[in-house]
C-alpha cells in the first residue's frame, strides 16, 4: 500500500534528521535541500539511498539533481511508489 504525501514527508524528515540533525519540523515542502537546509552533496546521496530503502523506490542518480526542494522529493517518491 502506498503512502500519502504527508506520510512520505514525515518519513523523509526523519531520514534528514537522522543524517544531519536538522529538526524534523524544519523539513517542509518548500525548503530547498541546499539553500535552505544547507545539506551537502555527500549527505544528499546518503539521504537518497536511505529514502530508497525506506520507501522501496528507485531514485536514479540522474533524477537526484532535479530534486531541489523537499516537495520535489516528496512528489517523486509518492509517484514512484505507484
Amino acid at each position: 500500500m502506498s503512502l500519502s504525501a504527508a506520510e512520505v514527508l514525515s518519513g523523509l524528515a526523519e531520514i534528514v534528521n537522522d543524517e544531519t540533525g536538522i529538526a524534523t519540523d524544519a523539513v517542509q515542502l518548500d525548503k530547498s535541500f541546499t539553500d535552505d537546509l544547507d545539506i551537502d552533496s555527500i549527505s544528499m546521496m546518503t539521504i537518497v539511498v536511505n529514502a530508497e530503502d525506506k520507501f522501496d523506490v528507485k531514485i536514479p542518480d540522474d533524477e537526484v539533481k532535479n530534486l531541489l526542494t523537499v516537495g520535489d522529493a516528496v512528489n517523486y517518491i509518492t509517484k514512484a511508489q505507484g
Partner: protein
Amino acid sequence: MVHKVVVTGIGATTPLGGDSKSTWKALLAGESGVSTLSQDWVAKYELPVTFAAQAKVPAKEMLTPQEAKRLDPSSQFALVSAREAWLDAGSPAVSPERLAVEYATGIGGIWTLLDAYDTLKERGPRRVLPMTVPMLMANGPAAAIGMELHARAGVRTAVSACASGTEAIANAFNRIRDGEVDIVVAGGAEAAIHPLPIAAFAAMHALSKRNDDPAGASRPYDTQRDGFVMGEGAGTLILESEEHAKARGAKIYAEVVGASVTSDAHHITAPDPEGTAAARAMLGALEQADSSIQDVAHINAHATSTPVGDIAEYQALKRVFGEKLSSIPVSATKASTGHLLGGAGAIEAIFTVLALHEKTAPPTINLENQDPEIKLDVVVNPRKLEGSNILAITNSFGFGGHNAVVAFRSVE
C-alpha cells in the same frame, strides 16, 4: 632563532578513563584497562585472543549522533581528546595561519573500511556510503581536528605504526621550534579492536594469549610476558611556543626539549637486537635538549610486553645510559593501558608530562618476576621524582623499524 616549546593542554580518552584526569588517576591506582571482549564476533570467528583494552567511555557517547556518523571511531577518539586538550589549554586565541595539527594513526579507519567492504559484498556499490573515503583515510583524525579548530598552517599525519604518536609530537615540536607556527595540536588515535587486526596480529604471534587472565596479560619485563594487548583511544597535547603561552598567561605543564626520529632498516617487524638506531633516537633527543644522560630522571619505555621487544629496548637503553641506567626509574604504562598502536606514543607522552608536572612516576602493574636479563629500575608503585628542572624521555618503536623519542623537562 630557536623557539622554546611548552605543553599547555592535555586530553585523552583511553581504556583507563574517558578523559586525561580519570586516566591518570586510574594509572596511579594501578588499574588495568584490559578485559574480556563481549562482542559476538569473538566466538563467531573463533579468535585465538578474546580480550583487549577497550576505551572506558565509547567515543560516540561524547559526540552528537551526526558527528559520530561521519567519523570513524579513530577520528571520534581523536576529536574527543582534542576538545579536552584545547579546553584545558584555555581555548587559546591564535591566528589560524599559525595553528597546525600533527595527528597520527597507525592503521587509519579500519572499521569504516571493513564495514564498507561488507556492505559492498552484501548490498552492492550503491549502498556504500559517500563518506566512506574521508572516514577511512589515515589522515581522518587530523582533518577532523583541523576543521574543528580552523587550523590553517598545515594538518599532517605521521604514519609509522606504533611510533606514529611520538613521531607526530616530534614533528609538532620541530615546527614550533623553527618558528613556523605558534601552536600545534599533536597526538595520535587508534580504533582497531576489530576481528581482522586481532586475527592478523595473533597470526604473527605478537599478541598475548592469556585469555584466562586479561588484566594480567600486559606484563612488560615479566618473565611470563607473552605478547602485547590491543588497546584503543587517543591522546592529544597542545604544544605552544613559550612566548605565545606566556603572553596569554597559559598554564604550563612541561617543556618539550628534544625529539628525534630514526629508522633501523633491519627487519620489517623485528627490532634490531643491537638497538643501534633506537639508541641514536634517544641520544638525538638529548642532544637537541642540550642535555646529557646524567640529566634524565625518568623514562616512559615503549615496553609492549613482547618477549623480543622488551629485551631489544633494554639493549638500546643500556647502549645510551650505561651504568647510569640502574638509577633511572622506568615506567611501562602499557601494562595498564594495553597498546594503543598509533595512539600509544601520545598517551605515553601525556604520562611523561604528568610525571614531571606532578613529580610522580606512574606504576608498572603485573610485574611479578622481573626478567633477570632486563636489569632496569622498574617503577611498580607510584614513585616521587626528586629535583627540579628534571628531564624525562618517552620511547616509541614501530613495525617498519621506526624509532621516535621525545624529551620533556619539568617547569618549576
